[in-house]
């Protein structure tokens, strides 16, 4: 897999003409997005705000006899923006783009002492507003209290109490949206001055008989273990271990079934289509290429299930808290850990997760580092290369050597990412103010099924779209380049090819294909690493997505020997030079390839996302450049080293 299954889809416009627009605004963890999903149902569309890549979530809902547009603004604690997400909220409120008709302020009723100041600053923008108080059931459970109607009178706006997961609150909100014309507004805007604001907050809360909740006892009990210096650290490693185990072990049987299915489908197609080259095209290029990548669907789905569960339960904030000191060594903060962890799936969600980092420098440093983390697109490449290098049963002590090397590659990715982050933060430290680190530690919750399902649905959907577009096109083009120009029997006879052998004929077509010319053109760059043009084709094509390398080598091998592609790969010989006749995939070449794929930014989707996230071509160019140089150098060193010891 790779990459842009996680790209935000192209902005799907919901027709805005004549429809009222309401924006949801609130603190992170206030239940705002849950409410947005409950209000919008399946109508949610994701796009981007112009100029920045802050995700824009639009939905619609029917209120009374009309349809209204809902916009879920990014969660923020403040209207003094220090991150792009927060800037979006400020811009929407001040009407830089187009101010919404009304706003739905969503506040967690258990944290009103903190968030009423935020509400005051929102109200000062003089946009018609209502307040939705979430988690009122939690407030009550924890011994707190609020008089919503007294609060409404004190604020001068309508207040709707809501509990998690009940329809009543949602219906009440819809009914209130329908009465937009008669919304009350504060008689005098809340004060701006800090001391007066504190006094205002105190006065409003006491009028509303606000009783803040007791600390959540359940959370305190869980945290006593999960954040314990010893047990907490232990649990953290167990959770991370389980995380990877699930992604790789649980997904494996599902992946096998997909593989079997596509092999069966390919064979059927090959048998059914009587035109020789078309049959090969459908079974090898279409089904082979797409199937080879769709194999990663279970992994991606599982990864997002787990991230959604960790996020929804509140553990992700704890993990970031536990990892903060370690991340600080690289000049980053705990939340960057979440981004790097997501990068294990794919650098794209990892890069997009940097939006939660308030510091622009931290974001940049994390973005430069994230593509080095071993993403799941590298996995099939590593598996193929390690498979060529080591026998399946070879052991080192109690450990399987293949597994050890794979683990080493993951470690290499993590360590080099941290190093790059450290270098990047050191380089940028010279400029700008130091931004604060703060992170809310929310009470534990049972993750919402709806949130998990929608996270998986969105990511799996985007991945399937990507497979059926970018990767399909790439594999088709590649197949054509590898198999054309087609040669007539007469031509081959003239060239002295043994026309009685299918293998010899395929090899001749391949050696004289368009792809061969491309591979040969870049040969000077990769020759020092021991790569020949056949590997080069793979490298060039893997720019589309790393896993395409596997598909390409498969096609190259299949073109040489259509019946036994894997054997063909192992039997491939160096075509010329002093080592002519030796196996092409020698240990030194495999080592070089492993290093190359560990470091090179062979993923155009990542480049594209970097461009969008940073707003210029500068950073993706720097990332691509530095990673290529490091990749080439490391590959060269690895190849030389292996040649020395073998």
């Amino acid at each position, binding site marked *: 897999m790779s990459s842009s299954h996680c790209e935000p889809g192209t902005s799907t416009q919901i027709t805005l003409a004549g429809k009222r627009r309401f924006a949801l605004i609130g603190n992170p963890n206030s239940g705002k997005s849950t409410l947005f999903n409950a209000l919008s149902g399946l109508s949610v569309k994701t796009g981007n705000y112009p100029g920045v890549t802050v995700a824009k979530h639009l939905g619609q809902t029917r209120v009374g006899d009309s349809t209204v547009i809902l916009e879920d603004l990014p969660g923020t604690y403040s209207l003094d923006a220090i991150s792009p997400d927060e800037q979006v909220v400020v811009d929407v409120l001040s009407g830089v783009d187009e101010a919404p008709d009304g706003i739905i302020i969503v506040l967690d009723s258990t*944290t009103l002492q903190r968030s009423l100041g935020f509400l005051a600053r929102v109200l000062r923008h003089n946009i018609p507003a209502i307040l939705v108080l979430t988690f009122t059931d939690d407030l009550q459970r924890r011994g707190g209290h609020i008089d919503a109607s007294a609060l409404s009178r004190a604020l001068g706006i309508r207040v709707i109490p809501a509990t998690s997961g009940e329809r009543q609150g949602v219906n009440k909100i819809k009914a209130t949206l329908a009465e937009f014309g008669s919304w009350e507004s504060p008689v005098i805007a809340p004060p701006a001055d800090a001391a007066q604001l*504190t006094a205002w907050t105190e006065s409003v809360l006491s009028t509303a008989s606000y009783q803040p909740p007791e600390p959540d006892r359940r959370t305190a009990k869980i945290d006593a273990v999960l*954040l314990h210096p010893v047990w907490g650290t232990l649990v953290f490693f167990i959770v991370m271990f389980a995380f990877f185990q699930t992604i790789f072990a649980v997904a494996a049987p599902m992946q096998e079934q997909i593989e079997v299915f596509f092999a069966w489908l390919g064979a059927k197609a090959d048998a059914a289509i009587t035109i020789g080259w078309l049959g090969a095209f459908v079974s090898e290029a279409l089904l082979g290429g797409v199937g080879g990548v769709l194999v990663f669907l279970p992994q991606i789905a599982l990864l997002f299930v787990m991230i959604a569960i960790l996020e929804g339960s509140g553990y992700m904030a704890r993990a970031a808290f536990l990892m*903060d*000191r370690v991340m600080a060594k690289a000049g980053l903060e705990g939340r960057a850990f979440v981004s790097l962890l997501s990068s294990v799936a794919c650098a794209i969600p990892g890069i997009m997760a940097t939006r939660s980092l308030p510091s622009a420098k931290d974001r940049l440093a994390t973005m430069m580092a994230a593509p080095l983390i071993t993403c799941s697109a590298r996995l099939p490449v590593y598996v193929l290369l390690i498979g060529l290098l080591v026998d399946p049963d070879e052991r080192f002590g109690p450990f399987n050597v293949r597994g050890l090397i794979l683990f080493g590659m993951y470690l290499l990715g993590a360590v080099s990412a941290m190093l790059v982050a450290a270098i990047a933060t050191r380089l940028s430290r010279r400029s700008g103010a130091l931004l604060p680190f*703060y992170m*809310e*530690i929310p009470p534990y919750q049972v993750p919402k099924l709806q949130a998990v399902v929608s996270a998986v649905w969105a990511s799996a959907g985007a991945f399937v779209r990507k497979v059926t577009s970018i990767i399909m096109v790439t594999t088709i083009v590649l197949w054509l380049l590898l198999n054309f120009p087609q040669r007539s029997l007469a031509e081959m006879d003239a060239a002295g090819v043994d026309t009685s052998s299918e293998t010899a004929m395929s090899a001749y077509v391949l050696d004289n294909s368009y792809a061969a010319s491309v591979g040969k053109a870049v040969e000077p760059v990769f020759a020092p690493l021991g790569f020949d043009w056949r590997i080069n084709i793979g490298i060039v094509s893997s720019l589309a997505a790393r896993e395409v390398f596997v598909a390409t080598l498969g096609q190259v091998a299949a073109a040489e020997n259509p019946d036994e592609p894997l054997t063909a790969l192992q039997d491939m010989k160096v075509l010329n030079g002093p080592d002519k006749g030796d196996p092409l995939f020698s240990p030194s070449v495999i080592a070089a390839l492993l290093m190359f794929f560990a470091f090179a930014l062979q993923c155009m989707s990542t480049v594209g996302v970097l461009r969008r996230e940073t707003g210029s071509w500068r950073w993706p160019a720097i990332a691509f450049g530095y990673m290529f140089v490091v990749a080439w150098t490391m590959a060269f060193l690895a190849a030389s080293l292996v040649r020395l010891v073998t």
Partner: protein
Amino acid sequence: MNHAKASLSHVISVLSHTQTQGRFFSRTGRRVDSRDTLDRVETGRTSIVQEIDPQLDPTIHQRLLDLGFTPGTPIQVLRAAPLGDPRIYRLAGYEVALRAQQARHIVVREDS
């Protein structure tokens, strides 16, 4: 009455603290600056926000206010990360993790 209380506590502090270069050692042996800051409050204890360092960058100053660190707010130190930093604080009905680097800018007084 506030004045009376303040001067009384002042007298007590002068009597029970040995002054060394502007720093005091309290009866509990805890080192207290004449300006005590949140990062120095022991885990488990509660203190009251007095002010946020006025010299702090205005944006960060405002952010700390928005996070609830307003003067008069009681703050309990809940727990520290395995390596001592950051720490989790409870205030205004919620919990937030801050590094010592930020907590240092929050001037507190003892909960009386």
